[in-house]
């Protein structure tokens, strides 16, 4: 018999822990078992929604990519979409293709970071090195020549199109990088996904059932790993996704391994999308003429996209001023890291906590905003 009063103690996971990012979960533990988990966010809260109320759409394009450092271009894209819809703009075809290509590259590099983190959490340093190494090809050969900076594109995807055209030798670079990514997928298959140790540590850990996934508001790879076939790119298409052919990977297990594996399959699909988009990309204009001092139209819009972590959305209200009246940002990690994680950590072993945490494809920055 155990004395309940003495048996529990509280263990903070994070914020200063190399495996947790800037986020804390307070774990109430009974020996090795987690009885209750309680998330404590707010280490990165900057108040984006209010910052955007003080800026014009073109200024906001630069602010928007800071929402999540790991996938800045996705956030650029969703912001641009929200403004485009309020203004009723139909942007040039070429801009749509450029947006899609960059968004998919962003997804790939974000997933590579995810795998690196996952390998770290399961005690596999090599995976960490490989993932970050391959990601650098995208930063160095795609993002830097196109947007001008390795990480932050400073509003490259802006309302009305993109800031400037692709560089001349983009084709060559793009196909070279895709070849590298293929290698990366091969490497991860060999070293991570077929590795018995990795399987042992992730299979059957942190199982999220179908009903719970819906109830807790999971989206993106997390909900697809639980057996629900949904993807904003197909269900609620934006840009040119309805013209492209790609599959939506789904798995039924709902455990940490299947979440990682969904990410791996998504990389393959993203490469397919990029190849198609590269072939079909038309020539022509890359942006509408946008007056920086324009007044926005009166109205509201709700733009959703499929970011690497799940559904990213912006709700924007405009009263016809130069600045939006209200912006609401919906970050996928906000739900993944608080309700879903709290639910999954319950009744788990302490040793599994980092694995589960990393399998959520986390980004504390878009949770806090």
């Amino acid at each position, binding site marked *: 018999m155990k004395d309940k009063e003495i048996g529990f103690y509280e263990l903070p996971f994070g914020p200063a822990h190399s495996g947790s990012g800037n986020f804390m979960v307070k774990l109430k533990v009974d020996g090795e078992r987690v009885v209750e988990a309680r998330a404590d*966010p*707010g280490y990165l*809260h900057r*108040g984006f*929604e*209010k910052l955007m109320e*003080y800026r014009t759409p073109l200024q906001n394009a630069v602010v928007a990519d800071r929402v999540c450092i790991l996938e800045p271009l996705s956030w650029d894209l969703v912001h641009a979409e929200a403004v485009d819809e309020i203004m009723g703009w139909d942007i040039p075809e070429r801009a749509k293709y450029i947006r899609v290509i960059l968004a998919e590259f962003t997804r790939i590099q974000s997933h590579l970071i995810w795998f690196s983190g996952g390998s770290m959490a399961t005690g596999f340093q090599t995976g960490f090195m490989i993932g970050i190494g391959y990601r650098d090809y995208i930063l160095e050969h795609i993002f830097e020549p196109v947007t001008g900076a390795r990480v932050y594109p400073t509003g490259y995807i802006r309302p009305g199109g993109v800031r400037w055209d692709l560089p001349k030798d983009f084709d060559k670079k793009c196909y070279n990088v895709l070849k590298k990514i293929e290698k990366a997928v091969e490497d991860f298959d060999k070293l991570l996904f077929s590795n018995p140790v990795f399987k042992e540590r992730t299979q059957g850990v942190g199982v999220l059932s179908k009903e719970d996934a*819906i*109830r*807790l*508001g999971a*989206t993106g790879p997390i909900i697809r790993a639980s057996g*629900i076939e*949904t993807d904003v790119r197909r*269900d*609620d298409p934006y840009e040119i996704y309805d013209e492209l052919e790609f599959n939506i990977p789904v798995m039924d297990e709902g455990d940490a391994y299947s979440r990682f594996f969904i990410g791996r399959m998504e990389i393959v699909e993203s490469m397919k999308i990029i190849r198609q988009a590269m072939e079909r990309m038309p020539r022509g204009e890359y942006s509408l003429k946008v007056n920086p001092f324009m007044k926005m139209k009166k109205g*509201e*819009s*709700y733009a*959703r996209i499929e970011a690497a972590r799940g*559904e990213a*959305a912006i*709700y924007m*209200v405009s009263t016809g001023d130069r600045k939006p*009246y*209200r912006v*609401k940002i*919906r970050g996928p990690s*906000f*739900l993944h890291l*608080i*309700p879903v994680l*709290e*639910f999954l950590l319950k009744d788990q072993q302490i040793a599994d906590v980092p694995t589960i945490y990393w399998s959520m494809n986390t980004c504390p920055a878009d949770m*806090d905003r």
Partner: protein
Amino acid sequence: MSWEEIIKDYNPTIQRERRIWVNIPKDKVYDILQNLKNEGFEHLSSLSVTDWIDEGKFEITYHLWSYKFKVLLTVKTKIDREEAKIKSIYPIYDRSAWIHEREMHELFGIEFIGNPDLSPLFLEDWNEKPPFRKDFDWREYVRSKYYNKENEREKAYWEVWLK
């Protein structure tokens, strides 16, 4: 009853394909959301608040997505600014509603009746007005808190100040 019938009486506007907006009075919202959930709007995409300070109202928006019909339905309702209280939808959408309401409670100071836990989320030791309300002068607050008038470097923030 299909979902179209549930909202038919409230003049929904169709903005474009897959985007429908509807305004519903405050006391009906809970029942309608309950019915919509049963009809297949299972995913609470987001819950947001707009502060219409000139009107003296808060507008609460529920963005619902249906995996079945592939429609994004936005339900909007207005409550008085003075008496910022509304029934929580925690019993309908469970934890996903809980976390959104907790956030809105912190940032706008709206009371969600029936929500089990509305403790602060992002801010530690905050004792000003809820920061996202329109009458909280954000820039004035920043200026007086962080920028020193005497400091040579920071003087500019006091002299030139964008509104």
